């Protein structure tokens, strides 16, 4: 998992910039009684702000992030953005926030001092990990160091078997002695993680009390209170991550809460989770590990909502940033989820949108390998020094520079805020091209062809892993650079269409505006026959009761998804499927899913259920989408420029996307510019704008 990608755009100065609601004045009409929604998404380089008024009017912002105190930029974004649309924080009726504090704490190893108590004989569970090495041919690549050092781990005398029966009772007296020396380590948190505690947490809970009484750390947590699922390494790792980020997140949320209150905000607010759902700040402080992969989720949730709105059955969501690209699959408007995600190589057994990240982005550097192949990435110029055309000291040709040399990108970005040095990019491309025997244009076009091949390979891999045929899918491209590559990718992969959402460069913030409130509960079970189903229903009832306590607004319309993790006995992986109180029907549901995912079902094998899951969601009312029905379909190019396409320079029309109305149709080749992104359209393609400002790119022949 990579850190939150820096945006590929860089600004010369730190002034905030308002991009006005399309086709309207920068100032929104004053609405005192309507809805006013806001999302603030913190990224590595920029903090993105989206404000949505009653009719779906959207205003978006980018302001520089403040990594040492990320809440500063959040508060500045809230106050500044609202002031410019003539509103105030007190008027907000919804506020959602995507934070990278937890993510960055793990990546930069800047978290709490954590200790651990384990079952005797198992203190190395975190260090052994999966016993595999991360790279099969690179001996220098190591597994990540555990978040809890060896000296902070002690063993307790206790043991349970796989059924939760006590084999050796917890020796509380000796445990109290054993943990005493940990006092010298000045630990912030101690995690108690025992073998088989997922079946019976009693020893863990008793041990927590003992360690608390010993007073050797400010906080003591049972691992099963964070994740109560089988597999000791994944469970301990999840609890360790949670403990590691906990003090930072708690402090951050407190500061932000104070800042928002001071700014006058009255509405309760929520934070984005890795699962694409929202969590209250207090729940986020209790379960900070649930926010660790939230940076990936905002865009995917948006893409899922938009797919639902557009009636797309299968969508590949494609989010291109500066150093990497995130690929996710959305079926019938629902993103694929996983329980086997990772942060910085450490497993995290909590629900997350299933995102596949590849090391290819706008900043990816082109180089020649010793066999004479032109390679692009995975090294990236990143935010610093960035591409050559950013004039920040970058010397190596990047994907962005190739776009500049070919004329796909103009001489400025972010509505003129940011200048691109085309001459510098071209000079570098000429010089580098000479060394490989190609013209500057063919070198630049080659870089784009190679990055298309690399990205296509990533998408193909995901499609095979998830058992779908790309020819039946649509591509939803966003991130600052997504729309520059969408046309080539959709064509290369033979996809139905490429869809560019209205604000592709700020899709994460826009996307999280309509994320649901979500709570996840999981209980390990052992059900091998229908006889166990009654107990399973009790377990669901218990989880429901917990949910009722936790919901802020239990009266609101609430959706309870009852799910189970099932598998054929002996399989080492599970499938999460819908729960059914009838064993035969439960089995049929499982087999159907197994067939869909893996191409076969096994009627002779026995099925077992190992986890019961409850997903509780409250869908916030979707804000209206901004209509462009009132804008005329006719458009004229704002200018023309030379763009190099398939080996020749062509005079290509440049459009301003803000002028596009419903049913605006553009024939390729064309470049369509907007504040937060640039769209490229191939000569063999058409683009059509719909009523809600989604641009649909298709093969020209299909439309004629």
């Amino acid at each position: 998992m990579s850190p939150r990608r820096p945006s590929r755009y860089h600004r010369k100065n730190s002034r905030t910039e308002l991009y006005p609601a399309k086709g309207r004045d920068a100032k929104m009409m004053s609405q005192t009684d309507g809805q006013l929604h806001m999302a603030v998404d913190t990224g590595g380089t920029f903090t993105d702000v989206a404000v949505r008024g009653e009719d779906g009017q959207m205003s978006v912002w980018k302001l520089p992030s403040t990594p040492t105190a990320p809440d500063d930029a959040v508060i500045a974004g809230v106050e500044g953005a609202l002031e410019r649309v003539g509103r105030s924080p007190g008027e907000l009726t919804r506020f959602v926030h995507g934070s990278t504090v937890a993510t960055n704490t793990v990546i930069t190893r800047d978290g709490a001092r954590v200790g651990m108590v384990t079952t005797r004989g198992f203190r190395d569970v975190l260090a052994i990990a999966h016993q595999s090495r991360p790279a099969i041919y690179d001996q220098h690549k190591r597994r990540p160091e555990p978040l809890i050092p060896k000296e902070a781990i002690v063993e307790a005398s206790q043991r349970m078997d796989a059924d939760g029966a006590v084999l050796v009772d917890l020796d509380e007296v000796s445990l109290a002695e054993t943990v005493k020396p940990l006092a010298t380590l000045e630990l912030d948190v101690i995690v108690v993680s025992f073998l088989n505690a997922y079946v019976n947490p009693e020893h863990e809970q008793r041990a927590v009390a003992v360690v608390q009484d010993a007073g050797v750390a400010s906080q003591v947590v049972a691992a099963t209170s964070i994740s109560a699922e089988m597999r000791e390494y994944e469970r301990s790792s999840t609890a360790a991550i949670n403990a590691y980020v906990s003090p930072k997140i708690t402090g951050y949320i407190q500061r932000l809460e104070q800042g928002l209150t001071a700014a006058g905000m009255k509405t309760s607010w929520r934070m984005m989770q890795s699962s694409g759902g929202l969590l209250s700040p207090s729940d986020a402080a209790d379960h900070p590990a649930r926010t660790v992969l939230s940076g990936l989720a905002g865009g995917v949730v948006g893409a899922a909502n938009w797919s639902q709105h557009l009636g797309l059955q299968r969508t590949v969501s494609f989010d291109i940033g500066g150093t990497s690209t995130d690929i996710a699959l959305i079926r019938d408007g629902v993103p694929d989820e996983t329980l086997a995600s990772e942060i910085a190589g450490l497993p995290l057994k909590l629900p997350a949108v299933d995102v596949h990240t590849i090391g290819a982005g706008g900043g990816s550097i082109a180089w020649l390998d010793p066999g004479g192949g032109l390679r692009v990435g995975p090294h990236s110029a990143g935010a610093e020094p960035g591409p050559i055309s950013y004039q920040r000291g970058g010397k190596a040709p990047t994907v962005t520079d190739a776009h500049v040399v070919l004329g796909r990108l103009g001489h400025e970005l972010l509505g003129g805020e940011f200048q691109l040095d085309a001459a510098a990019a071209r000079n570098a491309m000429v010089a580098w091209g000479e060394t490989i025997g190609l013209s500057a244009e063919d070198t630049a076009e080659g870089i784009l062809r190679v990055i298309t091949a690399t990205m296509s390979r990533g998408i193909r891999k995901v499609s095979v892993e998830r058992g779908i045929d790309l020819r039946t899918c649509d591509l939803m491209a966003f991130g600052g650079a997504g729309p520059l590559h969408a046309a080539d990718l959709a064509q290369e992969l033979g996809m139905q269409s490429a869809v560019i959402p209205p604000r592709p460069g700020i899709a994460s913030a826009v996307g999280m505006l309509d994320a649901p409130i979500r709570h996840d509960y999981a209980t390990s079970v052992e059900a091998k026959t229908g006889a166990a189903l009654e107990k399973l229903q009790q377990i669901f009832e218990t989880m429901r009761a917990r949910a009722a306590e936790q919901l802020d607004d239990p009266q609101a319309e609430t959706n309870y998804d009852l799910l189970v993790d099932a598998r054929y006995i002996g399989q080492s992986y599970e499938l999460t499927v819908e729960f059914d109180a009838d064993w035969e029907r439960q089995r049929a549901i499982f087999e159907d899913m197994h067939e869909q995912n893996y191409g076969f079902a096994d009627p002779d094998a026995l099925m077992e259920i190992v986890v019961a899951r409850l997903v509780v969601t409250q869908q916030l009312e979707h804000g209206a989408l901004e209509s462009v029905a009132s804008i005329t379909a006719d458009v004229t190019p704002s200018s023309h420029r030379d763009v190099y396409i398939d080996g020749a320079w062509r005079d290509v029309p440049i459009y301003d996307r803000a002028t596009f109305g419903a049913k605006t149709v553009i024939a390729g080749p064309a470049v369509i510019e907007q504040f937060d992104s640039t769209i490229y359209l191939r000569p063999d393609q058409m683009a059509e704008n719909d009523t809600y400002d989604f641009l649909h790119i298709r093969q020209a022949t299909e439309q004629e």
Partner: protein
Amino acid sequence: MRDATLNPVELEIARNRLESISEEVGTALIQTSYSPNIKDRRDCSAGIYGPDGMLISQAEHIPLHLGLMPTLIKNALASYGTEHLVDGDVLLTNNPYLGGSHLPDMCVITPVFWQETLVAVVANMAHHVDVGGITPGSMATHATEIFQEGLRIPPVKLFAAGELRDELLAVVLTNIRTQDKTRGDIMAQVAANRLGERRLHELLEEWGSQRFDVSATALVEYAARRTRSAIEQLPDGTGTFTDYLEHDGNQENPLAITATVEVAGDRLTVDFSETTDQVAGAVNCSWAVTEGCVAYVIKLLTDSSLPSNAGLMQPIEVTTREGSLVAATFPAPVSNGNIQTSQRIVDALLGAFQQFAPEHVPAASSGSMSIMTIGGFDHVTGQYFSYVETYGGGQGAMPDQDGASAVHTHMTNTRNTPCEVIEREYPLRVEAYRIVEQTGGTGEYSGGDGLLRRLTLTRGTAQVVAGTSRVTTLPWGLAGGSAGQPGEVIRHGNDGDETRESMTRFDVRSGEGITIQTAGGGGYGQQQ
């Protein structure tokens, strides 16, 4: 052959497209296979070939497969005769002497036709749960000839012109303990190849067969250039080193593996002719495994990203003596050649390179894939059970870095089975699973520590088969670093503890158990 000149862009696009297809075939196989061997341990690989069996691109998931896929397909096609192939045929084989590794590795080969001409071949290989023989799992350590290891299948048509040959499949499955799983896995292999065939057809539609041929040749030449450039990074010189495998499967019996290595400019020659004769035990290696070890070592020592196709070995000449431990011939048993011998071949190669390229070579690692099988009848569930796992150990220290602890090294890289899963699914209790501190060799950089797993049978009776190595020899250190501590196998009987040989087999009753401790890695350099 046509002159294969592609510019740097075309070359990279061809590489991505063709590697992407092998990757997709491998992914589809993992996704749709039944057994944990393939799905979790990923003991499988997939490749795209020219019509003559020249490997164009490969996706291997463990290094062991590096040497298998380039040779087996070529030989299988040659022995069957491509003139006998038609569209819709699928060949099946597991013959180690043709270039496979051991009988559980079954290979499915699908010829791809375009405009009625054979233009390419898609193949994949996977380690099956069982192929018959004297022990469940077909990995007996005590076999003395290949007939005891299971069913051997020469290249035969599993599908003829699109029709499944049911009778042939019935013969195969009748000789196998896990008929249903094996059938499922073989069909997953066939289906994965079919995906590859479809992708190749899409590519041929787009490129035409001429560009396909040119691209294939160019990619092989490209890989050869990459290997040559990698070999050039090594200093010229020659070295000979002998290392010993301590056990032949039936008894302690030091077996000498001798590698002579010479680097001259951009060429590498490796000679194993001095290696001892093959033995009547399951530790013999097919020469394809040996070649895979050479390919692995060159990637390890120079450039880990060298592409895996026919070009990889072009600048490398490997000589083996037929009938030796590292080039076994009929009827030598070979099932554990992968587990034990391949790791010692790597050690012998590293020792030889070390003599003239010391700054590139790490100290010896734990030296075995360390396999444990515990099988028996569980009267509570009324089912046979079979626990199989391989264990990591200490990694040898590098000239610039400590070795990692409790990690799979060299020719394998599979994940462990969680203790909680072991206890839930088998009548076994994990008494301890830990890193054994201070077992790595010392030095300026220390070797990684070994791993210990202690298991107790909780009910009934079972048979234990364990195979590790470096119990009577030590993983050597380099440049003044000390050797890693040896491994250990202990039987915990109701009559007391007993130290066993590195490859061992015994029965256990409820309450009895076994400890296996793997060796630490060697250290590097004088301790400061």
